[in-house]
C-alpha cells in the first residue's frame, strides 16, 4: 500500500502538472480538492481518466468520485480493492 500511495502521488503531480509540489508535500490524508491540493473540476476528470487507463477502473457515478478522491489514502484503498490492471 505504501508503494501504491507513492505511485499515486507521483502520477498526480505529473498528470496534473503540479510544478511547485513534490511527493513529500502531499500527506496521505490531505484533501485533494478544496483547501488541500486545490485541484479543480478538470483535474477531477484527469484523475478519472487515470483510474481507467492505469488501473482499469471506470467511475460512472459522480458521487462515487467525490468520495474516492477524498485523499491519497482513500484513493489507494479504493484502487487496491477495485483494480483490474
Amino acid at each position: 500500500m505504501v508503494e501504491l500511495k507513492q505511485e499515486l502521488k507521483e502520477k498526480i503531480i505529473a498528470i496534473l502538472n503540479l510544478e511547485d509540489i513534490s511527493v513529500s508535500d502531499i500527506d496521505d490524508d490531505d484533501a485533494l480538492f478544496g483547501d488541500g491540493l486545490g485541484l479543480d473540476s478538470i483535474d477531477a476528470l484527469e484523475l478519472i481518466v487515470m483510474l481507467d487507463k492505469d488501473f482499469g477502473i471506470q467511475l460512472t457515478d459522480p458521487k462515487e468520485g467525490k468520495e474516492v478522491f477524498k485523499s491519497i489514502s482513500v484513493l489507494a484503498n479504493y484502487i487496491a480493492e477495485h483494480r483490474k490492471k
Partner: protein
Amino acid sequence: MDYPKFFKMDSLSKLAFLGADSLLKFEEKEEDTAILLSNRASSLDTDRKYQASISDKTNYYPSPSVFVYTLPNICIGEISIKHQLHSENCFFVFDHFNAEHLHTNAEYLINHHKAKRVLCGWVDFDDKNYEAFLYLVSENGNIAHTSNDIKKLYNS
C-alpha cells in the same frame, strides 16, 4: 511564476497570460477591462496535440485538460481569472494582424461605455513560432488610438 495554474495552461494561454501580466501589473486594478485578442493559428498547436492523443484507437484516453484548450479564447479566461476582469471579451482569427478591426471594436466598447479599458492584441502560437503584441486602450491614454498608431506600434 508564482501562480500554480500557469503550469497547467497550453502554450497559447501561457503566451497571452504572460503578455497580459507584463502590462497589467504596472496598471491600476480595473475590473471593467474588456479583452480583444486575435491571432492566425487559433488553437491549432493544442488541436494537434489533442488529435495525436486520440489517434490510437487501442489506447484511447482523451485528456480533458488538453481538450479544454482546443479553443483560442480560453486564454482570455485565464487572464480574466488572474486579474479579476469582468467585462466584454472576444477572440478573432485573421490571416494577418488586423489593426483596423481591433481599433473599431475597442472604440465601440469605450465609446458605448461597455468598458473603461480594453486590453487588445495579437497572440499567436504554432509549433516553435510565437508572437505577442498587447496594448491597453482607455479614454485618457498617452498615445492616440488610431489604426495607424496601432500598426506603428506593432511594427516597431
